[in-house]
C-alpha cells in the first residue's frame, strides 16, 4: 500500500469546509476580512498610515543627493575672503575654543589657516556666493535655499552618515526614506516607494564606505527599506528572469503559482496567501516597469545634452539624476543618491574639482528638468554631506595644495523645490567658517524640515520600539525651520 495516496488530506479539507460557514468561497472569505488592506483584490502596494499626512504637504516626493565624505563648505559655498590674509597663520584659540578634533589632526603641532584657492563670485538675484568649482549650480542659486549653518555632533564618517540618514549615530534605527515610506506609503503600483542609487565618483583618494543601514528600515518592517537601483546587472536585484525563461514562460509559471496559492488560501483561510499572490503579481509588473524606467531612449537629445555627456553612461551621477526625475514622474516617493569620494583630507584642490565635475551639471539639470515639467513645485530636493571641513590645513600646506579635516560645527547644504523658499541664503558662520554665528540648524531640524515639507509632523511620526515611541528626529526638542519654507 502506498500511504502517500492517503485520503486524510482530502477528508480533512472537506471537514474544514464543512466547519466553516457552510463552505464559503474564497471571495466571500476575503470579503469578511477586516479592512481593505487584506482584501482579495486590493493593490499590493505599500500603504501609508491612515492619519498621514498630518497637514497639507508642500511636497509629495523628494530627492536626496547625498555627498558622502563631507564636501568642503569653505571651497564651495561659505566664502571667507578674510582668510586670504591669514594664510599659514595658526587658527586662533579664541575660535577653536578647545573643541574636539579628530585624532587625525589632534596631534598636529600647528593648525595653519588654509584659505580656499578657488575664486568665488556672487550670482543671481539672491547674490549668493558660489565657487568656480560649481559653475552650473551657480546658475540656479535663485532656485535654491542655501543653508550655511547646519551642524551635527558626530565627527567621523560612519557615525555621522548614520546620524544624518537615521537620526542616530549607531546602527539600528530606520532611515529617513523608510520613515517616509512607512508614513506616507507609495504612490504607484509597480515601483518601490523608496529607491537608492550609488553612482561612481572620480576623486583619487580612498573613498569612504556606505552602509546598507543608511537606507535600511531598522526596526520598521523591511517592506520600507530602500530598494537599491543598480547600474550593472539587474537594476533591481533578481529582477530578470534566468536565461531561457521569457516573459510568457514566466507568466505561465505565475498563473500556476496563483492557481495553487488560491487553492491554498481556500484550504487554510490565511489572508497571507492572498497577499503573496499580489506580491508575485507586482514582481511580474516590476519586470516590465523597471526596465522601462531605466530605458532613456525616449528622452530627447536636448534634454540629454542638458545633463551633460555623463548621462549616457549608466552608473554616473548625471545618469542617476535623470533616473531620479523619471522616478518622480512615475510616483516614486523618495529617491536617495549616494555619491561617494568627498573626503578631502589632502590634495583637496584636485580631488574636490573632480568631485564637483561629477555632480554639478547633473544636479543643475535635474532641477531644470523638474522645473520644466512642473514637478519642482511638489518635489523637494536636498544636496549635502554629513559634516563640514576645517579651515585649518591637514598635512602640508601650500597656496596650491592643502587638505582639510572633519568639521561637525558647521557645514553647507542646499534645498530646492516643494515648499522651499527659493533664492535665499540662510545662516552664517564666523570668519573662519568654524562656528555658527547666526541661525544654527541641527541635522534633526533639517530632517524635521524635510518631513514638514512632505506634510509630516516629525513629532507625531513615531514607531513603538523597545518601549519607546521612536522618531527620526530624536528625543530632544527640534523643529522644522519654517523660515526656509514657503
Amino acid at each position, binding site marked *: 500500500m502506498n500511504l*502517500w495516496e492517503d485520503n486524510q488530506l482530502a477528508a*480533512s479539507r472537506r*471537514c*474544514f469546509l464543512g466547519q*466553516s*460557514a457552510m463552505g464559503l468561497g474564497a471571495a466571500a472569505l476575503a470579503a469578511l476580512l*477586516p479592512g481593505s488592506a487584506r482584501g482579495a483584490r486590493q493593490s499590493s502596494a505599500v500603504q501609508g498610515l491612515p492619519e498621514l499626512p498630518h497637514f497639507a504637504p508642500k511636497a509629495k516626493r523628494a530627492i536626496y543627493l547625498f555627498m558622502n565624505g563631507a564636501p568642503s563648505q569653505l571651497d564651495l559655498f561659505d566664502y571667507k575672503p578674510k582668510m586670504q590674509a591669514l594664510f599659514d597663520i595658526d587658527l586662533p584659540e579664541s575660535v577653536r575654543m578647545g573643541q*574636539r578634533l*579628530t585624532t*587625525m589632526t*589632534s596631534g598636529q603641532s600647528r593648525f595653519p589657516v588654509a584659505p580656499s584657492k578657488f575664486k568665488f563670485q556672487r550670482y543671481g538675484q539672491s547674490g549668493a556666493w558660489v565657487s568656480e568649482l560649481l559653475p552650473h549650480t551657480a546658475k540656479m542659486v535663485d532656485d535654491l535655499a542655501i543653508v550655511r549653518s547646519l551642524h551635527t555632533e558626530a565627527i*567621523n564618517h*560612519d557615525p555621522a552618515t548614520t546620524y544624518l540618514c537615521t537620526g542616530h549615530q*549607531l*546602527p*539600528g534605527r530606520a532611515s529617513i526614506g523608510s520613515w517616509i515610506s512607512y508614513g506616507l506609503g507609495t504612490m504607484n503600483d509597480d515601483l518601490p516607494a523608496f529607491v537608492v542609487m550609488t553612482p561612481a565618483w572620480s576623486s583619487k583618494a*580612498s573613498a*569612504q*564606505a*556606505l*552602509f*546598507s543601514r543608511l537606507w535600511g528600515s531598522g526596526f520598521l*518592517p*523591511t*517592506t520600507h527599506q530602500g530598494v537599491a537601483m*543598480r547600474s*550593472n*546587472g*539587474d537594476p*533591481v*536585484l*533578481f*529582477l*530578470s528572469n*534566468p*536565461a*531561457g*525563461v*521569457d516573459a510568457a*514562460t514566466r507568466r*505561465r*509559471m505565475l498563473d*500556476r*503559482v496563483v492557481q*495553487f*496559492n488560491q*487553492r491554498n*488560501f481556500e484550504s487554510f*483561510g490565511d489572508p497571507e*496567501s492572498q497577499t503573496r499572490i499580489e*506580491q*508575485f503579481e507586482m*514582481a*511580474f509588473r516590476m519586470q516590465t516597469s523597471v526596465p522601462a524606467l531605466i530605458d532613456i531612449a525616449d528622452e530627447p537629445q536636448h534634454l540629454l545634452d542638458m545633463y551633460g555627456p555623463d548621462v549616457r553612461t549608466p552608473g554616473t551621477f548625471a545618469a542617476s539624476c535623470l533616473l531620479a526625475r523619471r522616478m518622480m514622474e512615475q510616483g516614486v516617493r523618495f529617491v536617495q543618491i549616494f555619491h561617494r569620494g568627498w573626503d578631502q583630507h589632502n590634495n583637496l584642490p584636485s580631488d574636490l574639482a573632480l568631485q564637483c565635475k561629477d555632480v554639478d551639471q547633473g544636479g543643475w539639470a535635474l532641477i531644470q528638468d523638474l522645473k520644466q515639467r512642473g514637478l519642482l513645485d511638489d518635489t523637494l530636493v536636498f544636496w549635502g554631506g554629513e559634516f563640514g571641513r576645517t579651515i585649518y590645513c591637514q*598635512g*602640508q600646506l601650500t597656496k596650491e595644495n592643502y587638505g582639510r579635516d572633519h568639521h561637525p560645527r558647521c557645514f553647507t547644504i542646499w534645498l530646492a523645490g516643494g515648499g522651499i523658499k527659493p533664492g535665499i541664503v540662510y545662516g552664517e558662520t564666523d570668519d573662519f567658517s568654524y562656528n555658527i554665528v547666526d541661525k544654527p540648524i541641527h541635522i534633526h531640524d533639517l530632517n524635521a524640515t524635510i518631513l514638514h515639507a512632505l506634510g509630516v509632523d516629525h513629532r*507625531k511620526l513615531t514607531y*513603538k520600539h*523597545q*518601549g519607546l515611541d521612536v522618531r527620526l528626529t530624536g528625543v530632544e526638542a527640534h523643529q522644522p525651520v519654517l523660515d526656509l519654507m514657503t
Partner: protein
Amino acid sequence: MIAASRIRMKYISWSILALALVLLAVSLARGDELRDFGRDIRPILSDKCFACHGPDEAQRTGGFRLDQKESALGETDSGARPIVPGDPQASEVFQRITTDDADLRMPPADSHKVLTPDEIERIRQWIAAGAPWKAHWSFVAPVRPAVPPVKRSTWPLNEIDNFILARLEAEGLDPSPAAEKTILLRRVTLDLTGLPPTPDEVQAFLLDNSADAYEKVVDRLLASPRYGEHMARHWLDAARYGDTHGLHLDNYREMWPYRDWAVAAFNRNLPYDQFTIEQLAGDLLDQPTEEQLVATGFNRCHVTTNEGGSIVDEVEVRNVVDRVVTMGTVFMGLTFDCTRCHDHKYDPFTMKDFYSLYAYFNSLDGSPMDDNRKDPAPVLKYATPEQKSQLAALAEEIGQLEAKLDGPMPEVDAAQATWEEAQRREVTAASSGELPASSAVAVNNPPQATPKNQLTVSDWYWVGPFGNDRRYLRSRRHGPEGKQVDLAQKFELATGEKVGWVRKSEWVDGSVHTDLPGELVANFLYRTIRAERAETIKVSLGSDDAIRVYVNDHVVHDNDVDRAVAPDQDVVELKLKPGLNHLLIKIINYQGGAGFYFKITSPQVIVPAEVYDIARRPANEAPPEDRRRLREFYRYNIAESDELKSLHDKMAQKREASLAVDREIATTLIWREKKEPVRARILTRGEYDKPAEEVARRTPASLPMAPRLPNNRLGLAQWMLDPAHPLTARVAVNRFWQQVFGCGIVKTSEDFGSQGEPPTHPELLDWLAVDFRESGWDVKQLMKRLVMSASYRQTSRVTPELWQRDPANRLLARGPRFRLDAEMLRDQALIVSGLLVEKLGGPSVKPPQPAGLWEAVGFVGSNTEHFVADEGPNKVHRRALYTFIKRTSPPPQMTTFDAPSREYCITRRERTNTPLQALVLMNEPQFIEAARALAERTLREANADSAERARYMFRLCVGRAPTFTEVRDLLSGVAEDYAHYQTDRQAAKDLIAIDVAPPEPLDPIELAAWTMAANTLLSLDEVVTKN
C-alpha cells in the same frame, strides 16, 4: 484660588460627561469586568503618564509618581491626592484626565499622547474598585501556578494545553482539530531542524500507527545535529554575530568558532544557565576550558571600528554600552538603552543603575579599536579536534627527532672539539658596547668560517606606530629618522601617546612578521650588526607596504610601494664598516595589514655573541645548558654530517608541516579581564566626555544581587539565574515559544518592561519559566514540551469567524502558520533538490551573490571591498547558517526575507511579504539552480511516467501527496512549457546551463520544462510557509 475655581467650573461640564460615561460603563460592564491592574491599567499609566510621573527623577513633575503605590496614593506637591481608592471624583488623576480645560487636561497636548474614552473608563472603574495595586508583573519572581482545570478534559496532552484551553473556554472558543500527519511532520521537522522532512521520513511516519509515533519523531529530531544548527541560528540574531567588524572599513572578523560553539551548545543540550554563564563570564570560571573561553565571544560580538580620527574614549563607551544593552535585551528583556542618558521613563531603573552595570563590562583587556584586524585582542587560537590531533602527532615526531639530535654523535662531537679549539685561538674583543646578540638570526653554514668574517647581530628593536597622512609618512623627518638611534629616546604619537623602543626577541629572521600595528602609519625597526672587518652583505627584504633602509644613518634603499609582504621582495646590499653598524628600517603601511621580512643571505656565518663567548671558554668551565646551546649551534650551523643533515631536513619538514597546520587555526574574539577593573563613572547625558559621579559594580537597586555572589560578571550571570530573579527564565522560555508559535506569549520578546506588551497567558508563561528552571534549564526538554502539546499540533486552517476573532492567533485556537525564515527557505530549496552539503561548522562561506554589492558600499581598501564567491558544492551549498555576513552589506537573498544585518541585537524578526521576495524565489540563481537540480533528481529518481514524476517532485517540496487536481495542473504546466521549449531549444539549453556542473545527459527540453515545474513548486505559498 483661581485655578481652584476654574476646576469647579469644569465640574459642571464634567457632570454631563460623567453621566454619559456612567451609562457607557453600565453598557460595558459584564460580570467579569473587574479591572486587572497589571493587564488593564498599568500599561495605560506607563505609556501616557510615566514620562513625567514615573521613575525618571529629572523629568518628574508634580511631585508624585504613578509607578509606585505609595506615591500614587499619597500627596502631590500641590497637596492633591492623585488617586483616592474607591473615589474617582476625589482623585486628582481622574479629574485631570477628564477636564476639558486644555491647560489642565492630562496628558498635556505637547506630549502628543491622548487617552481614549475606553482607557479613561478603565481607569475610572479601577479607582472605583478600590485601585488595587500590583507591582509590574515581570518584576515579581514567577511562582509555579496551579494547572487550570478545563471542561474538555480529554484535549490537553500536557500542561501547556490546560492553560491554552482554559483561556479558549473562557473566550467561548474551541480548539481546532489536530493537523494531518503530513502537515504536522513538516511543521515539527522545520521547527526543530530548520529543514523539511524527506519523503522517506513522511512515509515512515504515516506507516507508524503506534501511540508514540510522533514522540519518536520528536526525539529523533532533537538528537539530530541539524537541531543545534537551527537553534543557534536564532540565537545568533540575538548575539549579533557577524563575519565583519560592522563599522567603517568593515574588515573581516574571525569569529566563527563562537558560532560553532553555539551550535554545539544546543546539540549537547548545554543547560541554559550554563549557556548564560559561559557566554557572559566563561573566563571567570575556575580553569575555564577553551570552549568556555570561546563562549565569552558573546561580549565581543558588537560592532567595532577603527575609523581614522576616531576618539578612542568615545568608541570605548559605545562598545561597553552595546554589551550592557544587549545583555539586558537578550537575557532580561529590559531596555537599558534608555538609561544611558537619563533615568528610565517607564521601568524602575536609573542612570546610576546603568553605569553600575556598565562597570561589569568596561574592563576588557584589549583596545576598543579593532585595528582593522581579523583578530583584535584578546583572542583565542582555537584548534579544531582534527587540527589538535595533527599537531599532537607532529609534536611527537618532532620530539623523537629532537631526542636524536640531542644525543651523542661521536664523529660530529670530535669535529666540534676541533672547531672550539680554533675559536679559542682567535683573540678578538667580541661584544663591547653593542646590543645583546640575537639568538633568532638565521645562520649560514660555511664550515671553514673563522671568527674573522663572522657577524654578530642584535635582536630587533621596534618603535611605532607613527600615524599621519600619506605625504607626511613619506618624509624623512619621522620619529627616529635622520639621526643616530638612541634606544632611550621617547616619541610622541599622533594620539598623544608616548612610546619608546621595544625589544622584539621573537622576530626571527627568515620568516614573515605581520604583527606590525596600525594603518596609514610608519613603524621603525632597529638593530646593530658587528662586523669584524669592512664588508658587503646581501639581505633579502619584504615589506607591507613601503620600505626604507638606513645603514649608519644613510639611506641605502627606498621603495615606496603598496604591497602585501612576502620573502625576497627586495634584495639589497649593505656595506658594513668594521665594528658596530646601525641598521634602521622604516616600514610604511598605507592600508590593511602591515608586515616585514628580513634575512641575511650572504655566506658569512652569523654567530650570536653569546655562543661565541661560550665557545671561547674551556669546555669544562661552561655550565651544561651553555654547552647544550653551543652543541646545538654547532650541529645546526657548522657541522658537516650526512646523518645530521638528514635529521635536520626531516625536522624542517615536520616543523613546516606543524606550522602549516598552525597557520590554519582560527582565532576567535574572547573576553579577558584587565587585572585591575577600570573605574566607571556616570556619563552625563550618556556622553563620553562628560564623566560625573563614580559608581561601583552593582545590579539595579530594584533587583539586588545576593551578597553570597561574587561582584563580577560571573556573579552578575548567577544573579540573573537566581530563582528570585523575575525575568531571565521567563524571557528565555518566551523566546523559545516565539520560535515555534511565531509570536511570544509576551509579543515584545525584547521588552518585558511596562511598555512591553503584557503576556496573553501570564500563568502559562510563569508555569513554563518555573518548570524550565526546575528542570535544570533543560532546553531540549522545553522544546519537546512545546511541540508535544495539543496546542502545537492543531491544524492551522482558520475559519473566517476565527480569523476575525483572532487574526494574529494569540489565543491559539489553531496551530501556528507563518512564512519560513530566510535561511530555512534557502536550505529547503537546497535539500529537496539534493544539493545541500551537510557539514557542521568551519569558516563562513560565500555562495554567489550579484556582482557589485560590496563594491557599491565598501571602503576602498577594506578587505571586504570585493566579493569573491566561493566555488564548489562544499562551499556554496552549505546551510545558510554558514553564509558569510558582511554587516554593512549582508547577503540580499537573506535580508530580502527579513534576516537582520547582525549589526545589533535582534530577538524578534519581522515577517514581511513583498514583491522583492517573489523575485528572489523566481530568479535568484541558487533558487534556479535548485530548481534545475530538483528537476534532474526527479527525472533520475522517479519512473518515466509523468504523473509519477509530478507526484515525486511535489512530495519532495510539499511533504505530502498531491491531489489529483494538483497533479493535473502541474502536468499541464509541464506540457505547456515542454511545447514552448520544443519551439525554442536554445532557451531550454540556456535555462538548464545555469549551474557550474554540466547537467546529466537528459533531454534538455524535458529538463527545462520540469525545471519550471520545480521553480513553481519552490515558490508556492504552501512551500514557503510552515503550515
